[in-house]
């Protein structure tokens, strides 16, 4: 009985130590990413290429997600509100819900699945095929050439994607509101404009920039630490997506508390 409890404690201890070691490794990687990756010299071509991959090619996914979420939100609020309040509640909640929460969080989750996975797979393959070692022998720092451009591109792209997603999300609510629920279009837009403040949008964009940093950091970290061939790259990809998703949701809570909490 005593041995069994000691074993349990040993397992718990190992898990805690392993977790702390992982947090430490991630913190050191983040420090190098910021200190080395985000200081001159900058590789302009790489940054432009990553802006295209992370930003431009993610646009259809983010736009579709925002449109359908805006539409679904309009339907849900309509069914949950009385006939007298629906015309005011639907546009207001769609606008605030999309700009403050659903826009940045859903865009972050979609981009983490699409881009975070791709970064981890690409860098993981480069790691296991010694391409990152080859960069070093060619006097090129992998943090400057690979990590920096991805971080910069993700932090710049996500707010732009979310801003476009906000517009499309509200448009989704508008289309459902006017076509399916019978609201007056001009009244819908006026209520939306009256309800929405610049803080609602900027808070979402701040969140988006943080989520972009998380996605690129976790993709690069897991890619750089992948081991053991194809299986290792697969594991790195999964870890990058899962870790990004959890960190995005946690950071969203923290940022919401910070930006909208009781003062």
């Amino acid at each position: 009985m005593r041995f069994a409890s000691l074993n349990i404690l040993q397992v718990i201890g190992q898990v805690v130590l392993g977790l702390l070691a992982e947090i430490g490794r991630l913190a050191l990687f983040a420090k190098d990413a910021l200190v080395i990756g985000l200081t001159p010299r900058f590789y302009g071509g790489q940054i432009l290429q990553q802006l295209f991959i992370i930003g431009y090619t993610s646009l259809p996914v983010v736009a579709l997600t925002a449109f359908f979420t805006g539409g679904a939100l309009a339907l849900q609020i309509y069914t949950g509100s009385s006939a007298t309040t629906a015309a005011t509640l639907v546009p207001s909640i769609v606008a605030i819900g999309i700009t403050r929460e659903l826009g940045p969080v859903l865009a972050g989750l979609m981009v983490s699945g699409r881009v975070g996975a791709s970064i981890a797979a690409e860098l993981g393959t480069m790691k296991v095929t010694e391409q990152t070692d080859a960069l070093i022998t060619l006097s090129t720092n992998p943090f400057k050439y690979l990590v920096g451009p991805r971080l910069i591109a993700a932090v710049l792209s996500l707010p732009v994607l979310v801003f476009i997603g906000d517009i499309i999300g509200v448009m989704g609510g508008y289309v459902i509101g006017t076509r399916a629920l019978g609201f007056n279009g001009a009244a819908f837009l006026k209520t939306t404009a009256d309800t929405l403040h610049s803080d609602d949008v900027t808070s979402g964009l701040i969140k988006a920039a943080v989520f972009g940093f998380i996605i690129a950091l976790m993709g690069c970290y897991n890619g750089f630490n992948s081991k053991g061939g194809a299986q290792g790259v697969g594991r790195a990809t999964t870890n990058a997506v899962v870790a990004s998703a959890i960190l995005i949701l946690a950071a969203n809570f923290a940022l919401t508390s910070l930006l909208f909490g009781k003062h």
Partner: protein
Amino acid sequence: MAEPFIKLTDLRKSFGPKHVLNGINLSVEKGRSLVVIGGSGTGKSVMLKCILGILQPDRGAIEVGGQNAVDLKGTARDEYLHRFGMLFQGGALFDSLSVWENVAFGLIQGRGMARAKARELAMEKLGLVGLTADVGALYPAELSGGMQKRVGLARAIAADPEIIFFDEPTTGLDPIMADVINNLIVDSVHRLGATTISITHDMASARKIGDDIAMIYKGEIIWQGAAKMVDRSGSAYVDQFIHGKADGPIKMDVRKG
């Protein structure tokens, strides 16, 4: 004996509880070609990565041209790496770049050379390894294993380095292509007058490209001498390795069912 150009003294490196380098002592004279032989997992690649600063040794000294090479930072590290070229085992060509961009990578990104000039030099180096100009526009995935090795060699010699490392240059190639690569290595090294360290399991390659041979076993250099002396080393370990015998002092870590 001449002053060593590359000198490793008591080099040690462990990964957790696994001691990979257990006090490597090794020296290479300027302009000589040293081949390090040894079984898989004996620390050959780790030794090269320590010299290049890709891995940090736990203890020991690395001197290149009389200068300390451990823990270099910033410009000193860049200047140190400019002296090296390396051919990786699998080629390690960048998938997203064309062949000529791979060869010119160190010139453009590492040394800030203009693209047009770097392209011209890359084409010249591709010619030296027997590849035609049209190969320059292809991507690594479109090349055979032998062609990838040639491109890797062209990249290793692109900046005319004074030191070149070859990591298993003939692994995975048929014997004829392996000999072609060996000849290219010998030609390139003689043309540049470079100092080289190669690691290989392939004794035919070791005899062809090496002036000297050293054998690594369990993270230590157990024999070093002229390549022509390898058959009369007096070491049972070396004899077993060069003749590829299962029986001998080297016990392979193979679990029996």
